[in-house]
Each structure stands twice: as C-alpha cells, then as structure tokens.
C-alpha cells in the first residue's frame, strides 16, 4: 500500500494485522509504545518525518482502544510546525487524540489563533477544523470574534467560510454564554442569500443552532429559508455537482426544514402559502424508486417535510394526507421506511384530530409488533401505547399480553409496565383489569414490579363486586403447577381476604384453600412467608364453625415459625397464634381489610409526571415532547406536580366514606384490643401496631408509607437532574479481570440511590442487586436483594462490607449459592456513629463461568441521616447568631459551581433533605436551609445553611454552614460543595480538607495509592 507513504507505519499495521490473538496484539502495541516513548525522549534526533510517523502510530494505537498517555505534547507541537505536512498531521492527530478539556490544548491556542487570522488559507482551514471539532470554552473565549469575521468576510473563499460557519456553530453550541451573537440576525439573513451551496449548507446548520436557542431574534431569516427551500425543491439554479442522485442537495433541504420547525408559526400569509405549496409538492411528488440511495435521500426530505407539516398544524385535509402516507409506509417491505413510518405516526399522535385515522391502521401496527427487527418492534410498541384509549384498549392490551410470552428479554419490563398502565387507564370493566394483571404476573412475573400487584389489591379491596371474581381467578391460578412468587403473594392475599365468598364452590373449602396455598410455602422466599401467615390466620378466622383439624395444622405452622430467625415472620407467628387462641375475639381483629383511601395510581403518576414536565417546556417542539413521553418507562418515580385527572379515579367506584371507614376500623380494633388486655395478662402487641403490621409488610401505601411519599413530593424534579446530565454516561470500567459487563451505569445508580431508598444497585447479565432502605434517625436498615437471573445457580457468592470508621454495619449471612432464578435477601443494619462523608463499600463476588468481582459503593451516605426540619425566623436567627464562627460556623467561597437557577438549587437542597426556608433571607439571591442530623455521637443536631449567590456569575457562590459540632459543620459543608460542583469525589480519610478535584495530569500518580485506586474504580 504505497499510498500511506510511510513504511514504518505500514509495517506496524501489518504486524498488528498478523497478530493471532489479543494478547499478541497487546504485546506488539506495548513494544511500539515503548519504542515511541524512547524516541520522543531524545527528541533532538527526530526528523519531522519520524515525528509524523510516530504520531500517526499513536493515533492508530489509540484507535485500537489502548490508552496512550504520553506523546500528546509531540502531537500538539506539530501544530506549530512551519510546513504544511507536519502541521496537517499535528492538527488531525490532536483533534482525534485529545478532547476539549485537555490541558495541552491550551498551549496550542496561540498557534491556532495565528493560523486563523493569518493569510494562509490552508492553515486557516486546518485550524478551523480543529476548533470546530474539539474547541472548548477557552477557544470560544479567545477565538469566536475572529471566526465570526472570517465567516462574513468578503475576501475569504467559500472553503474557509463554510468551515468558519461550522466552527462557530460548535463554539456557540458548547458555550452559548461566551459567544456573542447579538445583532447576528441581519448577518444570518445575508448569509442565507449565499450562492455557494457549501457555505449555505454550513450556514443553515449554524442557523438551526441559533434559532433553537432563540427564534425571536431571527424572524427575518424565515422568509429566506422558505425561498431557499423553494429554490431547492423546484431545482432552480442548482449546480449539477450539488444534486445527489438527481435530488438537489437533500441535506440542505432537510436542514432548512429543520430550521423552520423552530419558529412557532408562520404569520405572513404569502410565505405560509408558498411554503405549503412546496411541502405539498414534496409530500405528493415523492415516489418509491429502485435506486436505494435515491430512495433514501428523497424520503429523508419527505419525512422532514412531514415533521414540518405536523409542526405547522396544517389543515385537516393535509394532515389526513400525511397519515394516509404513513399508513402506506408502515406496510411496505423496506424496513427503514417501515421503521420511520411507525416513528412518525407516534409523533403524529400529538396532533389533534388524527387519532381516529391512525386507529384504522391498528391491525398493521400490531403486525409490526411481531417484526423480526427489534428496532421496529420497539417503535410499534411505542405507537400502540400512545394510540390506546377506551375504544381499543381491550384489543391492544390483549395483543401486548400475547406478545409478552415471546418478547425479547430486553423488552419485557417495558412491555409489562405499559400493559399494566393501559389496563388501568382504559379498562372497560374491572374484572378485565384483574384478568390482565393476573395474566401479566403469570407470564412475566419477574418483570412485574410491586407497584403493579399492590395496585390490583387496592382495586379489589375497594370494589366489593370484584372480590368474588378476583378470588375465583386467584384460586384458578393456584392450580397451575409452577407459579411465580408474585402470583403466590397476590393469590394468598386475595384468598385470605375473600376466599370465604367462594366457600360453596367445589375445591374452595377453607381446608382446600389452605392446603393449596400451603403447598407453595416451601418454594417462596422470606418476604412472602409473612403474607402466607396472615392468610392462614384469616382462613382460620373465616372457618365457622371452626375445624379443629385445620386449626391444629395452622397452629403447628405458627409454632414452627415462632422461632424463625426473621423477626417479621417470628412476630406474626407469635401474634397470630396468640390471637387465634382467643376464639371469637379473633373475628374482629382479623376482620376484612378496610377500604384504601383513594389515591392516584403510582404507575399512572409516573406516566403523568413525565408528561406534565414536558408540558411546562415551551411546547414548541412536538419532537421533544415525544422523546420524553417515550422515556416514561425508564424514569424513576418523580414527584407529582399536577392534580390527578378524573379519568383514572373514575374506575374505582368511590366508596361512600373511605377515609372515615378506615379510621373507624382503626378505632374499633383498638377498643377490642383494650378488652383483650384486660382478659389476658400477657397481651400481644398493641393493636394499632398490629393493623399497621398487616399493612406494613404489604406496603400497599398504608398511612406511614404515604407520609413518606408526601415528603418525597416536596422535592420536585430532582431525581431527573443527575440522570439527565449523565444521560450519555458510559459505564465505568470494572476491575480488569472482569469479563462480565455491568448493565447500566454503576455510578449513576449509586447517585440515584442517594436520593431514593429503593432501586437497583448493580446489574449484569447474571445477577441483579437491588436495595431497599429504611432510615430512622441515626439508624438504618438496608436489605440487599441478590437475584440470580439464570437458570443455573450462582456459586461462591461472597459479600463483604468494608465500612468506613463512622458507620457500624452488620450484614446478615449471605448464602454461598443462589439457586436458579431465585432472589436472596440480606438485611444490613447500619448505625451512624459520627458525621462523615466517607462511603461504605460492598465487595461482592460470585462465580458463574468466570469469577466476577465488583466493588460497589453503598448508598449509606451523609444525607440519609438527615431529617428535614423547617425553622421559622424566630428560631433561625438566634441560633445563627449563637453559632458565631469557626469551627462551628464555616464559610467558604465555592467556585466552579455547575450553573443552575436558584430554584434548581433549592430543589437540589430539598432532595437531600436540606429544607429550604423561603423568606428568611431578605436578599432574593440568597438561600437559607435547615436540617437535623442524627448520629450516635451528636444525637439530633440542628444544622443551618446559607448560600449567597451572585446573579452575574452563577459559577460561584458563598456558603456558610453552622451546627453545634465542628466535624459536622465541616463534613456537611464539604458534602454540599460536592453536590454543587458536580464532580463527585470519593472522600477518603476524615481529617484533611480534600483538595479541589485533582488535575488530570496527577491521575497516574494517584493511582499508585491503593485507596485512590479503589476510589478511581468506583467512579
């Protein structure tokens, strides 16, 4: 291959190609890196040719996925070479090897600037390309005006100007606050008159970025865009070289229409008319042709035109034309067109009045759900979900259920959640709803979250008509040979409550019900056993006249569990045994569950919150809305900020006095128990506890749960923040030895768990580690759920907690083996001894083919030991003044704060249970918050925080933290700082104030320290 012109490089590439395996390749690469390193050390001896060669080799090695941690300087230094060949290599390698925040780039700014303002056109091009590809903030600050000049200069040739346009686009997109575009609307309008289509293409991209940010300023560009589009669509005066398979620059057409979508509407009737003429032409004039490239290009234009038509809210006639077109597309053989047809039809749902026309295509869409291509299946599912309403819910949900048994693993969770939501939202009758959920659990129990089955229990409890039906169904499922544990829970619960309604049916005597449920007991996990015990107690209570044989059987079980190691099970066994020996008294205590207070479905709430969030946005971009609503399935629970719509409550026949009912039941129980106490000198637990006990473990949002709920609701929109920011995050590197890749981002999961109390801590193809936590003052109880996802056991399971010195942690025994498809729960008790930001680590390993070891940070973090408290001005100021200065009150100016509005900051604080007290600080730019911290050494301690922001510079602020304990003040201050400056650092060692995040160059040194290495791996 003579073209490369570098023998050494070609030889190296050949060598790599000849490597038999990865190990050989690595050896060859290491050898080469060693060679390059030595050569660079004696730099004097290097000819420009050699330097070039080595720099290319570095890029090649980098491209293969190896770390190249030296030689950056040499690459950058080539930029300042006087001759073109070296300079070119320098620019290209630098822009591929370094990223925008690399320190060495700073060194090059001056050279780059000289090239940009210099007279040499080719140098200008190279420099603009580099800045356009990796230019960061500092480049924007020092170069933006120069680049702007080039773009509009009349003496520059098109090849420079088009690069200048895109370079500016990059700088503006990355740092809109630095690049000054005031007064640019006129210049942009001028640029749109440009004859050179290369410059026009680049300028149009720039315009898209500008109008996306602020369309108001660019109204004058709108008619110009329409003109340009007309010129292209009619192929007027377009040079031959700019047509692509006979189509006048399809890319420019697409971009122009994209820019037009950022204007909310088109006022001028003439402009509007000519635009619609063009659009009509595109919609009607695009035919399917043989040539695949021509087809793609013309359809790219067509789909963009469709999007524009939707955006402009055209007349109904044109809209139905569009739907008809899409209907055609979703049935064609070409998979790309089918995919895009479905995708755009989903977007079309946002347009009013077309839903009915879309529904005509339902059969075809359902067919697509069985498409061999998962991309298409996903689109079909999204569309079906979006188009579902009362009229077609039965069909759609039944299709989804059918599909569930064959669906890809990757889609099942989404599928079952969507089916559950639709069934609840649009159920024509409640028995159908019960059917759907039970089928869901039956077919995809692993993917049915607790929310779903809690909800069905709520419905059944609140609707008397439904109870016998649900009981019959539950009984039927129990006959199946192997049923999912969730099904055991639901049916046991329902039969416990309502099986007496079936007593006359065959196979439904209390005895039979008991024995069929009891058969399942050996197969279930500890979390299900308490439910079963409650069921037995209820069956016993409903058996009138009592059956001594059954009674003895059940008592034997209670006795057996009286010494169970699990406190929950033990307590129930003891209490039920004591209660059931009381005979008639049992009747009242074990009475049917009262109706649940009406509340919005947790599932639907999830869905609506995402929608509400979007509605608050400018509502301009249909596309944007679409994106978010698609995402609803994966979002974590977000706080409600809208009122529940009636449509969803309507489903439940509102009980006449649900709340009163509840409390009177409470009352009755208490009285009853009061008499018990008199009779029996060894009373069981107070009955109020008993009731909450029954509710508690089932967690069907009983009163304590809902209190927590509303607390969480005080913190709007916080959980989304870190996620959104890290949307692109890439899973961090695991230990080198692991060949198993984690699913999802471990660091993100950890962060999310910092804000909520249950969720997934870690997941890979074999295991999922979930976590559920309860915090009370300085104590916490975490439960680790270790779920084996395979059909064979996981062995050599080991979990070791490495607690920091301030936490006392006790992990219950972790079994060595996790059976196939089983979930093991390991409770973990935590006691917070003193304030510290250090983090506990779970060292977890197992064997499945290979040995897998991960180190996971546990979300037992500082803010978990905070309890929100809001203080009034009368309480705040005396405290604030009495804590007069260091070490109890610390002040610090924090720089490099990630910019956020005051409201966002308040949200952030609230989400960490630092409750913002509005109105305390007279200055509107300041923020005052308070919280109570709990630890064994400090007990409950009030903490006060004050933030003073500078509206002119959001990146810095002054923070004052005060509490009655110096370490607490310091740790809390550092904790808040970490949250504000967006770079989460793992703290190690309590004493010295951690330095600001280390500069990247120091990273290799830090890695030699084992603690740092561990911290690094955990990031």
């Amino acid at each position, binding site marked *: 291959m003579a073209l490369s012109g570098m023998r050494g490089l070609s030889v190296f590439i050949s060598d790599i190609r000849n490597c038999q395996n990865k190990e050989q390749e690595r050896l060859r690469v290491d050898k080469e890196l060693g060679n390059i390193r030595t050569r660079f050390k004696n730099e004097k001896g290097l000819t420009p040719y050699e330097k070039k060669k080595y720099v290319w080799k570095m890029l090649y090695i980098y491209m293969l996925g190896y770390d190249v941690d030296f030689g950056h300087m040499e690459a950058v230094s080539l930029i300042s070479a006087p001759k073109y060949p070296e300079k070119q290599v320098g620019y290209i390698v630098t822009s591929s090897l370094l990223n925008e925040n690399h320190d060495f780039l700073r060194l090059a700014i001056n050279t780059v600037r000289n090239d940009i303002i210099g007279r040499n056109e080719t140098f200008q091009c190279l420099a603009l390309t580099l800045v356009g590809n990796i230019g960061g903030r500092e480049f924007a600050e020092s170069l933006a005006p120069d680049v702007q000049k080039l773009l509009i200069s009349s003496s520059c040739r098109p090849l420079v100007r088009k690069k200048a346009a895109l370079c500016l686009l990059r700088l503006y997109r990355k740092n809109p606050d630095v690049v000054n575009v005031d007064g640019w609307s006129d210049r942009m309008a001028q640029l749109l008159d440009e004859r050179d289509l290369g410059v026009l293409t680049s300028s149009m991209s720039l315009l898209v970025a500008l109008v996306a940010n602020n369309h108001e300023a660019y109204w004058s560009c709108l008619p110009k865009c329409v003109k340009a589009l007309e010129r292209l669509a009619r192929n007027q005066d377009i040079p031959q070289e700019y047509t692509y398979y006979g189509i006048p620059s399809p890319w420019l057409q697409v971009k122009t229409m994209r820019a037009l979508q950022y204007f909310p509407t088109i006022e001028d009737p003439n402009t509007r008319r000519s635009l619609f003429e063009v659009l009509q032409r595109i919609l009607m004039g695009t035919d399917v042709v043989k040539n695949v490239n021509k087809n793609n290009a013309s359809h790219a234009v067509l789909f963009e035109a469709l999007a524009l038509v939707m955006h402009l809210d055209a007349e109904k006639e044109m809209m139905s034309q569009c739907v008809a077109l899409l209907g055609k597309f979703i049935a064609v053989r070409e*998979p790309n067109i089918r995919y895009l047809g479905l995708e755009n039809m989903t977007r079309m749902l946002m347009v009013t009045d077309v839903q009915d026309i879309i529904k005509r295509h339902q059969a075809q869409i359902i067919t697509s759900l069985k498409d061999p291509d998962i*991309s298409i299946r996903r689109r079909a599912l999204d569309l079906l979900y979006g188009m579902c309403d009362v009229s077609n819910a039965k069909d759609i949900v039944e299709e989804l259920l059918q599909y569930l048994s064959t669906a890809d693993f990757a889609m099942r969770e989404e599928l079952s959640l969507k089916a559950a939501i639709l069934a609840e939202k649009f159920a024509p009758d409640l028995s159908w709803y019960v059917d759907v959920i039970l089928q869901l659990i039956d077919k995809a129990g692993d993917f049915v979250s607790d929310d779903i089955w809690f909800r069905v229990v709520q419905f059944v409890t609140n609707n008397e008509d439904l109870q016998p039906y649900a009981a019959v169904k539950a009984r039927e499922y129990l006959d199946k040979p192997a049923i999912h544990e969730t099904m055991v829970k639901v049916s046991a619960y329902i039969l416990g409550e309502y099986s007496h309604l079936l007593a006359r049916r065959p196979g439904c005597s209390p005895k039979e019900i008991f024995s069929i449920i009891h058969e399942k007991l050996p197969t279930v996990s500890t979390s299900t056993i308490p439910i079963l015990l409650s069921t037995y107690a209820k069956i016993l209570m409903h058996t009138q006249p009592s059956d001594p044989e059954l009674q003895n059987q059940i008592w034997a079980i209670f006795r057996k569990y009286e010494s169970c190691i699990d406190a929950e099970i033990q307590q129930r066994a003891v209490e039920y045994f004591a209660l059931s020996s009381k005979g008639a008294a049992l009747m009242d205590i074990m009475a049917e569950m009262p109706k649940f207070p009406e509340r919005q479905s947790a599932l639907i709430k999830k869905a609506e919150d995402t929608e509400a969030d979007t509605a608050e946005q400018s509502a301009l971009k249909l596309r944007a809305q679409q994106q978010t609503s698609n995402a609803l399935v994966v979002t974590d629970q977000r706080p409600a900020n809208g009122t529940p719509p009636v449509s969803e409550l309507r489903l439940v026949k509102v009980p006449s006095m649900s709340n009163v009912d509840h409390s009177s039941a409470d009352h009755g129980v208490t009285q009853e128990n009061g008499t018990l106490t008199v009779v029996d000198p060894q009373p069981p637990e107070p009955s109020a506890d008993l009731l909450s006990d029954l509710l508690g473990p089932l967690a069907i949002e009983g009163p304590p749960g809902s209190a927590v709920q509303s607390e969480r609701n005080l913190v709007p929109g916080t959980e989304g923040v870190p996620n959104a920011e890290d949307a692109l995050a890439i899973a961090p590197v695991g230990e080198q030895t692991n060949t198993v890749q984690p699913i999802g981002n471990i660091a993100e999961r950890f962060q999310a768990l910092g804000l909520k109390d249950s969720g997934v801590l870690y997941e890979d193809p074999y295991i999922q580690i979930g976590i559920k936590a309860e915090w009370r003052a300085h104590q916490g109880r975490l439960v680790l759920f270790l779920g084996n996802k395979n059909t064979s056991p996981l062995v050599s399971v080991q979990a070791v907690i490495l607690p920091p010195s301030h936490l006392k942690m006790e992990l219950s025994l972790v079994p060595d083996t996790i059976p196939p498809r089983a979930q093991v729960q390991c409770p973990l008790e935590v006691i917070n001894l003193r304030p510290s930001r250090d983090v506990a680590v779970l060292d977890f390993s197992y064997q499945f083919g290979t040995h897998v070891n991960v180190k996971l940070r546990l979300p037992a973090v500082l803010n978990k030991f905070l309890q929100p408290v809001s203080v009034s001005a009368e309480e705040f100021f005396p405290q604030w003044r009495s804590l007069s200065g260091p070490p109890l009150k610390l002040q610090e100016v924090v720089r490099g704060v990630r910019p956020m509005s005051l409201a966002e900051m308040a949200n952030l604080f609230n989400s960490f249970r630092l409750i913002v007290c509005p109105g305390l600080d007279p200055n509107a730019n300041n923020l005052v918050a308070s919280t109570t911290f709990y630890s064994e050494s400090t007990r409950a301690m009030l903490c006060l925080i004050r933030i003073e922001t500078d509206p002119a510079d959001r990146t810095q602020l002054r923070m004052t933290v005060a509490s009655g304990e110096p370490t607490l003040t310091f740790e809390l201050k550092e904790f808040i700082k970490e949250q504000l400056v967006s770079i989460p650092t793992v703290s190690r060692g309590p004493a010295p104030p951690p330095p600001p995040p280390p500069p990247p160059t120091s990273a290799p040194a830090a890695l030699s320290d084992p603690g740092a290495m561990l911290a690094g791996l955990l990031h």
Partner: protein
Amino acid sequence: IHFVLLISRQGKVRLTKWYSPYTQKERTKIMVMNAQLAQVIRELSGLILARGPKLCNFVEWRDLKVVYRRYASLYFCMCISQDDNELEILEVIHYYVEILDRYFGSVCELDLIFNFHKAYYILDELLIAGELQESSKKTVARLIAAQDSLIETAKEQSGSISNMIVQATK
C-alpha cells in the same frame, strides 16, 4: 452526529471520530476516557454485528440512535440524537463511501486500514462539529487533491535538500 465509527465484521475498529466529549466525569478523567470509549465501541459492535441483513439501518442505543450501513466487511456507523433525521445520515454515510471510493479507486477495507490517516483527512472535509459542511463530491475531491499536492511538493523539496546534503557530504 455525535460520533462516527468504522468497524469490521470481526469487530475491529477502523476509524473513530468523536464530536461530543462524553460526560462530565470523563472530562476530568482523561486517563479513563479511552477505556470508556472502548466500552461504547464494544457495546455497539455487539448490537450491530448481531443484526441480520434484512433489518432496518437504525439501532436504538441508550437514548441515542445509531445509523449504520454495511459495505462488504465494513460497518459504517454514525450516532445521532433521537429526533435527528435518520435517512439523511444514512446518505451521509453513503456519500462518504462514494468519496472514499473515488479517491482510492474502488475502495476496500485494506485501503482504509493502511491509509486510515487519509480516511481522517477526508472525513474532516465532510464533517465538522458533526455537521455536514460540503455536499459536492467534486469540491471535496478538489480540496483533497490540493492537500495531497501540497504534501507532495513539500516532500520533493525536502527530498532535494537532503540530496544536496548527501551530495555535499560525499
């Protein structure tokens, strides 16, 4: 376009070009970056190489989309946002391939392996900041040719100088 990726059927990387630096965290941790990018590449090649021939050219990945197209043993992939125009990007890929083809004269994977730097030059003439800058093949070809001739001239000059030195020191 967030990034461009060329991978062979065996999962070997032939070219990568990133237009948006990945996350906050990576920005501070340059050391880790390449490993993380390698992770992205592994994930994507797993997704894309596993796909059969008659499926569509789009893969949904994280909250992005990858538009890919296979030419003989090479997969050209470009990663875009959810709401970008997929077909437009599909043709950007083809347009790039056509230019490579014209430049190398019926391009094959070997050309791109041994001349990966040329593939970079040409890509830079096509895309800046992940946006298309020029849609005329003729113009791009002209610019590349001009660059090549600049390099050639420089080589000749230095060649003649070194000749002279050789001559002089004889």
